[in-house]
């Protein structure tokens, strides 16, 4: 059996779906092939049973590119949520729209320092955000071609905008862009839950602590489209809806066994069940190394395969999903605050300390958690008064010493619940159902390399011109008609849609052979 399309997209994660939508809207015949039974990848909803549904892995929207929304027509009814920095002493802080106050509504002593820092970071992040909607800049090709001239134009525009910030801001940007979040935060704020929350944001999902140089870049990256997180009403289904709405075919339940290559051009894919799908171009939203393996290392030069194998993709975030019989008690928080993004990171030093054990294959003794109860914002998710608590738990190793035995899993789950219980007394008594997804599980469920939140570290040595690896950074992936469109391509992870959109546009520029 064989069918022919213009383009095949491997993986129906939000980036694959975004790429498919952009192409289908340009009239291309697109087929998205997904191994799992359901589309969505890391941004998908799941039914926990008993009338409770919730986000399986990714659980918030905060960095969706407006350019993606424009090119795909994806529209979310996004409800902005406040960020609550939970404090062990009960003096929680609320961050909303760039302002900081005590959770009970009074003035926070660090409000002005926080607001100045936040405004500065958002301003700088917007600069970096400009880079997200284009392929990464390359300066080395110089004046060799019109295309690189256009890139230089983009770079010149960035330089101009940087200049426009004024000399002091420009100096500050150049000083901090490669530095570490820990020092930056503690130069301005006392170490406590607010600094902790920002430090945790800087390194969530990363194999890095806030003291590691480069963590300011990742903090700014997540602020690229402003800094407030939002819950998409109804979940992340809009990506799938946009793709099928634009006419793309979606095939779930069978993965791709190989990408077929002839004469250094892709011919299509062969599925695990033997089905052959032909196409002039193939876009892969898998990890970079898996994308290379599907076509076969023989098609890549030895340096490229070495670099791809060495890409750092050790995931450090686990996901804990709880179905609760009722809203837990959260002393010190209003109803609106309970529905917010709750951060357990008592200090930046705490986040750094939590990182240490994962380097040696152990989970944090005192985990750092980002929790949200989407069912409070979106009651349609649950019936019978049930609530869903969705928590990202850091740091958790991909391959713990001794492997993921049931005992190790239970221990991690218990530690995460204990940690939450500090702020939600009686939580464990409300739990009807619990699921833990370790980085290993996330890798198995979604194909994300190493279970890494961003398909690969967003260290300075793996972003922009060297993402995923040096020499393969501009979506075209070595073989004619083969493209990388997932989070391991520029600009990287989070639910942005940018890698998918940029890759699709690159393909449209290059043209699809008949």
């Amino acid at each position, binding site marked *: 059996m064989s069918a022919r399309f213009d383009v095949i997209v491997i993986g129906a994660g939000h980036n694959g779906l975004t790429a498919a939508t952009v192409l289908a809207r340009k009239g291309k015949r697109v087929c998205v092939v997904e191994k799992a039974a359901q589309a969505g990848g890391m941004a998908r909803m799941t039914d926990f049973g008993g009338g409770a549904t919730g986000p399986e892995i990714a659980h918030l929207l905060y960095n969706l590119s407006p350019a993606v929304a424009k090119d795909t027509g994806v529209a979310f009814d996004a409800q902005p949520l406040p960020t609550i920095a939970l404090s062990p002493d009960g003096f929680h802080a609320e961050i909303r729209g760039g302002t900081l106050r005590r959770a009970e509504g009074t003035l926070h002593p660090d409000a002005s320092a926080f607001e100045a820092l936040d405004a500065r970071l958002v301003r700088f992040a917007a600069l970096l955000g400009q880079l997200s909607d284009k392929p990464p800049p390359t300066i080395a090709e110089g004046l060799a071609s019109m295309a690189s001239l256009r890139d230089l134009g983009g770079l010149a525009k960035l330089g101009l905008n940087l200049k426009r910030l004024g000399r002091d801001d420009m100096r500050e940007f150049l000083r*901090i862009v490669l530095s570490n979040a820990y020092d930056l935060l503690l130069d301005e704020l006392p170490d406590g839950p607010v600094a902790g929350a920002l430090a945790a944001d800087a390194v969530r999902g990363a194999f*890095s602590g806030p*003291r590691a*140089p480069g963590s300011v870049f990742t903090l700014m990256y997540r602020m690229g489209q402003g800094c407030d997180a939002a819950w998409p009403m109804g979940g992340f289904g809009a990506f799938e809806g946009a793709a099928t709405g634009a006419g793309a075919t979606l095939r779930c339940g069978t993965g791709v066994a190989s990408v077929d290559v002839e004469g250094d051009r892709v011919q299509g894919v062969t599925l695990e069940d033997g089905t052959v799908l032909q196409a002039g171009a193939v876009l892969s939203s898998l990890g970079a190394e898996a994308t290379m393996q599907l076509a076969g290392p023989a098609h890549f030069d030895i340096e490229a395969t070495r670099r791809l194998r060495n890409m750092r993709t050790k995931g450090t975030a686990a996901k804990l999903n709880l179905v609760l019989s009722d809203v837990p008690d959260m002393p010190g928080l209003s109803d609106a605050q309970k529905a917010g993004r709750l951060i357990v990171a008592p200090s930046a030093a705490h986040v750094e300390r939590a990182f240490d054990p994962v380097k040696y294959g152990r989970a944090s003794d005192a985990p750092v958690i980002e929790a949200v109860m989407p069912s409070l914002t979106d009651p349609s998710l649950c019936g019978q008064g049930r609530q869903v608590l969705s928590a990202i738990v850091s740091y958790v190793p991909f391959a713990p010493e001794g492997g993921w035995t049931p005992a190790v899993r239970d221990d991690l789950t218990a530690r995460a619940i204990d940690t939450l219980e500090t702020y939600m007394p009686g939580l464990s008594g409300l739990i009807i159902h619990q699921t833990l997804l370790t980085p290993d599980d996330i890798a198995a469920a979604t194909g994300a390399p190493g279970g890494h939140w961003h398909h690969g570290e967003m260290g300075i040595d793996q972003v922009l011109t060297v993402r995923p690896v040096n020499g393969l950074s501009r979506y075209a992936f070595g073989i004619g008609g083969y493209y990388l469109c997932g989070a391991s391509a520029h600009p990287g992870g989070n639910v942005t849609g940018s890698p998918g959109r940029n890759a699709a546009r690159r393909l449209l520029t290059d043209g699809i052979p008949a």
Partner: protein
Amino acid sequence: MTVQTYDAIIVGAGHNGLTTGCYLAKAGLKTLIVEKNDWIGGAAVSRSLHEGWTYSNCSYVCSLLRREIVRDLELPRFGLQVIPYEGGATFTRDNDYFAYMSDHNALEREIARHSPRDVDAYARFSQTVMRQCRFIRPFLLRNAPDPTSLHPRDLGELAFLVKQAHGLGAKELGETIRFWTMSIGDFLDEHFESDLIKAHLAGSGIIGTGLGVYSPGTAYVLLHHYMGDVDGAIGAWGFARGGMGAISRALGLAFEEAGGTIRTGSGLDSFRVRDGKVIGVALENGDTFDAPIVASNMDVKRTFLHHVDPADVPEDFTKAVKRFKIRGSSAKLNIALDRMPEFPAAPEGAPFLRGDLHCSTSLAELERGYDDWKDGRWSAEPYFDMLIPSQIDPTMAPPGKHMMTVFVQYAPYDLKVDGVRSGRNWNDTTRAALANCVYDKMEQAMPDIRQRIVHAEVRTPLDIESEVGLTEGNIFQGELTFDQLLFNRPVPGYSDYSTPIEGLFMVGSSSHPGGGVMAAPGANAAREILRRAGKGRAMPKVAA
């Protein structure tokens, strides 16, 4: 009280202050160097603390000293002799070792003994490192360009950078970006499979920093230690005959021959400033000197937070100085030995024993050492860079006896005791405990080391700060992280050795290109001072 007038005064007779002094004096400026200690040299000193033995008390080996400067100032004529040493080794717990040797074939055989695949890896590794060294070396004796400036000089420096970068080509440029931003641990993991070889090579990526082997940016620090040379052999290290003080002595003699004056024994009280201009210095002993040009060899924190009235500089500048990171992360042991210790693992008379010796056997062990430091403790299993220079330089110890220098990392400045972090927690008890911890680890290589010790000088970060004046005892006068290199060093907008106070300059390694007994900050600053004084032509061409 005396008042005397000079053309220029330099505060601090460290090797950079002396270097600046030499260039200014040679250009005809009546120059005075003041120094708080009774001796000159700062952290490049040789002192005898136990009869018959000479220690290189702080810095201990030499490679980064720019040969252009050695030539300009004719330092060999003043007794400077650098003797290269060859090889080095890391000893394991199970009576084995990995030896580094400069003989290429011997090194290949030694690598193959641990991992045949790593022979190839080493070839790729050294090729990359050499290429990056060649890229960076031309920048060391130039001012760092200020990208926010439209001044022709800055644009010229920027153009030089772009030209050098463009010369690399597309792929190379990508590799350069990666190399400059990645961690030494990741870089080595990409190349090698042997833990021991990785651990041996990783040390250079962390020496002197408050970073771990897996902290991004440490590959650059490796480069910082590889970009020097001895007699043109890039990456080679050597001993200054007579200890590191020989460098300072030669610089001091060169300075005095050029007409300069050195006054030791009284520290600075304050820089004297009037209407935003420096007018001289006031010493602790009450002496006052006038000069329109004053240069500080002290680090930027000591200069501005201890000796300048905050009212004389903009508030933003003081804030930037306060947030400049100078972290104490290392200690130093200088040991007099009654004879050569036994190395049971090493073959009799092995030449690699004359090089740098270590006992850290894996990257994980090194990273754990860093975790301890972050938490305010010295590393339970410290990394050390240990040498016995008396094997090559017999002037360091009596016949048949030896001198050993041990650079220890990590040791925090603000040691945590009973939950409180403070430099005051360093005392005789904690100092002795640190030394004991180091001896325990040294026994991995030399089981008899404790019996060999005749005398030991143990220098905690606090000791180094109190004696030399380096804030927190940091050997580089400031962390070598991206936010503190090039145009960001030490304060954005002041990477050209100037300060907000007219006539006051920074010549120490808080300034570009940083520390490591390079003398480049001192020479670059001298060039800048002379240019501003209208005497730019007096600076020799080689260092311009």
